[in-house]
């Protein structure tokens, strides 16, 4: 292993040297390139063929709406997953990565959203594991203003923003050709982000490159030279950032509008009468990520929630569903203050959750029937009584959602869309008053999406209150009545779903001022 890595390094350097000697005048400009890279996860196609070119001495932005395939491309370039098809070139040579170690050896160092540091070891131990020179690491830490960091501290004791800097400093100490930075500034303070930019500018001056995946368009405009924009698993635009503005970037990310879907949706929106307040929260605060959130949702209403990744929406849903207890603030269900100690309490009050990761909610090796009937197992009387009404209830849910039951014996064999229907259907079987949906249509085909939209509207028309977080902005105007925008744990804006546009939402979610 040790030898292998060293050999790769050696041959790379040798090649590099040879190229320099051969053609000092036209040194290869393209450092990293992909050609037709494609990847599918079962039936879900994440990348349909991406061509990206990163030149030497360039900071390259990789942009796209949620689900466009950015993170899949990062995983392929970092050696976490192999591509199904297509090629990756470094300095014109094809490379094949089987493990992250291969990518590192080839000169691509990645900083992932979750720091790749071992929590139970000290920072010094982590460095030794990665064969990083401590002195070199210290020097780059100092540049970030963390020169006094105690390397003897356990990783799990350090705050997230420090870990991201540590991870970045480690990646830089590997001396790679290309830095791959996934949302590097997300957890950083403005001051730290500033230092990162300074360092990247220097990095570029040394003839090295970086690929930046970010939601913050201002950063793209400021330090990136080029931008590749992904949409729906393809690269749809290569822009020189100096020639465009932020609004043009947003438009390129959104692409052609979703008119056909719009039309099917409008009809059902027509008349919906709002009832009593079903769920109200006041000053809800979690330790770090949710700050003083207040809103109310009435029965018959679908309240949308929009946020960029990592703005506290996960925590907020955990609090609402009883999976976490808030530090401050209160939750009222139908006017009564509740203290949820566990999701069980919330479900008893009729507040139910469809979580973002459907595999968390499902029992993958059990049948569709078993998964749908799961909430019914709560009732104590079933210890003694053999249930008779379970079968028809489950059957009704299967029909209403038109779940494909060909692979019904094991839920894990269903497609993503059908799995999502099972998660939703479970609450139809047991009944509920308030439905919390966390990105229910992520990675789901268009047909199932429509069915889920229709179902949500139907449920609302029957008097359910629904809180819908979605990463697909088009859904807001299709499904919701009102929409709240969450930024950095706070609700920063409220828009009427009928008049909200994707760009108005996206701008608000980026923390930009929306011109009324």
């Amino acid at each position, binding site marked *: 292993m040790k030898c292998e890595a060293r050999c790769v390094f050696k041959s790379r350097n040798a090649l590099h040297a040879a190229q320099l000697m051969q053609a000092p005048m036209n040194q290869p400009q393209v450092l990293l390139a992909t050609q037709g890279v494609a990847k599918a996860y079962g039936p879900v196609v994440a990348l349909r063929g991406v061509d990206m070119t990163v030149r030497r001495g360039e900071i390259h932005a990789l942009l796209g709406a949620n689900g466009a395939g950015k993170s899949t491309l990062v995983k392929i370039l970092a050696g976490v997953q192999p591509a199904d098809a297509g090629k990756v070139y470094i300095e014109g040579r094809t490379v094949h990565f089987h493990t992250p170690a291969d990518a590192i050896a080839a000169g691509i160092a990645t900083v992932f959203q979750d720091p*790749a540091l071992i929590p139970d070891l000290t920072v010094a131990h982590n460095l030794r594991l990665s064969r990083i020179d401590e002195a070199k690491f210290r020097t780059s830490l100092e540049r970030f203003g963390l020169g006094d960091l105690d390397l003897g501290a356990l990783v799990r004791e350090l705050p997230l923003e420090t870990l991201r800097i540590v991870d970045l400093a480690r990646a830089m100490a590997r001396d790679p050709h290309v830095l791959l930075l996934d949302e590097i500034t997300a957890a950083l303070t403005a001051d730290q982000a500033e230092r990162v930019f300074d360092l990247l500018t220097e990095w570029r001056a040394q003839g090295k490159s970086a690929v930046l995946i970010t939601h913050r368009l201002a950063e793209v405009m400021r330090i990136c030279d080029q931008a590749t924009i992904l949409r729906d698993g393809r690269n749809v635009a290569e822009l020189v950032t100096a020639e465009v503005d932020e609004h043009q970037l947003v438009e390129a990310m959104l692409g052609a509008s979703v008119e056909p879907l719009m039309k099917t949706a409008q009809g059902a929106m027509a008349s919906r009468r709002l009832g009593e307040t079903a769920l109200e929260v006041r000053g809800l605060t979690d330790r770090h990520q949710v700050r003083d959130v207040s809103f109310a949702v009435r029965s018959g209403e679908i309240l949308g929630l929009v946020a960029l990744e990592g703005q506290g929406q996960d925590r907020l849903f955990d609090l609402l569903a009883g999976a976490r207890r808030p530090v401050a603030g209160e939750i009222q269900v139908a006017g009564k203050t509740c203290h949820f100690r566990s999701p069980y309490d919330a479900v008893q009050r009729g507040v139910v959750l469809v979580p973002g990761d459907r595999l968390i909610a499902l029992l993958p090796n059990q049948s569709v029937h078993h998964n749908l009937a799961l909430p019914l197992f709560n009732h104590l009387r079933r210890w003694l009584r053999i249930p008779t009404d379970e079968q028809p209830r489950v059957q009704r849910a299967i029909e209403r959602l038109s779940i494909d039951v060909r692979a019904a014996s094991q839920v894990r064999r269903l497609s993503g869309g059908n799995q999502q229907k099972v998660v939703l259907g479970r609450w139809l079987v047991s009944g509920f008053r308030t439905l919390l949906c966390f990105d229910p249509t992520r990675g789901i085909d268009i047909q199932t999406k429509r069915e889920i939209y229709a179902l949500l509207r139907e449920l609302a028309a029957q008097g359910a209150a629904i809180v819908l977080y979605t990463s697909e902005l088009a859904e807001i105007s299709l499904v919701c009545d009102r929409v709240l925008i969450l930024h950095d744990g706070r609700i920063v804006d409220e828009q009427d779903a009928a008049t909200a546009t994707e760009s108005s939402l996206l701008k608000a979610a980026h923390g930009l001022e929306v011109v009324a």
Partner: protein
Amino acid sequence: MMMPSMTMRNNPTLRILFRNSWTLGVWLLLGALVLWYSTLIPVFGPFQITSITKNSLPLVYLAIGQAIIVIAGGIDLSLGALLLLSNVIAARFMAGQPLPAVVLIALGIIAGLALLNALVGFIITLSGVPDIVVTLATGYIWSGLALWILPSPGGGTAPEMRWLFTGSPSGVGGSYWPPLLMLLIPAALVAIWSRNTQVGLSLYAVGSHKTAAQLAGLNVRQAKIVAYGIGGAMAGLAGLAMVALTGTGDPRFAIGANATLNSVAAVVLGGVALTGGVGNVFGVVATGVILIMLNPILIAMRVDSNNAQVIQGVLIAGVMMFGGLVAFLRERRS
């Protein structure tokens, strides 16, 4: 923050003590037990020290091996059976042999079992079958092999081997230095290796957060194979200690099964998290000795030997709950 105060966070010595508070705790417990035991019996001297130390050797070795495997995120239910295998091979082939041959056989057993168990580790990483299932199966296989090699108790070893592990060529009485050194040297070697070398740290990394380890470019498969190899070597050493202690080989299945369970108990008591990545080998040495010491203590207290296991169970549960309580209080205070 886990640290209770600023002074503790800033003082490196205090921090090391605090971080290893569990290890410290079990060594204090061992010290207290030894003191208590010395008041229970009329005479406490070198003979008792020798006796406790040499009787602890097989379990301590096995527990060290188990600890390394558990730290790397696995668990090995075949360690007891490997001990049997080592024990019967040694007893059958060492009997009546000159010293050089005995030494070669001993080294061969250790190296052979290390390779064998590394192969098991390789199979686990390759197949993706859970560790517990694979090692349960291989445990039965090794137990069967042991019976095949030595169908009934018998065989023997060289007096020098007995002296090395017991302090006396006949296995009775003798100096406490050889067994004490045989206890501490392997433990120290493994402990220092595991906390200071890249491969050693990679075991912790893989057990603590496998994905992060992989993303950081570590060879996850290699770490697990190495851990299982060390486990095999320690089981081989345990089998040799066994033959030195008793002077014979014994292939009975129950000996191996008990040894496996005791090794897991020592690991858990020693502060190694069964989820992997946390703990160290030194704590496990103390708890291995504690589990062995319970027997003479209970005999000295004239407790019926049938009740000994109940007390052992209560002790394990009690210590673990105490640990859980401490962690809970610490969390709540922060």
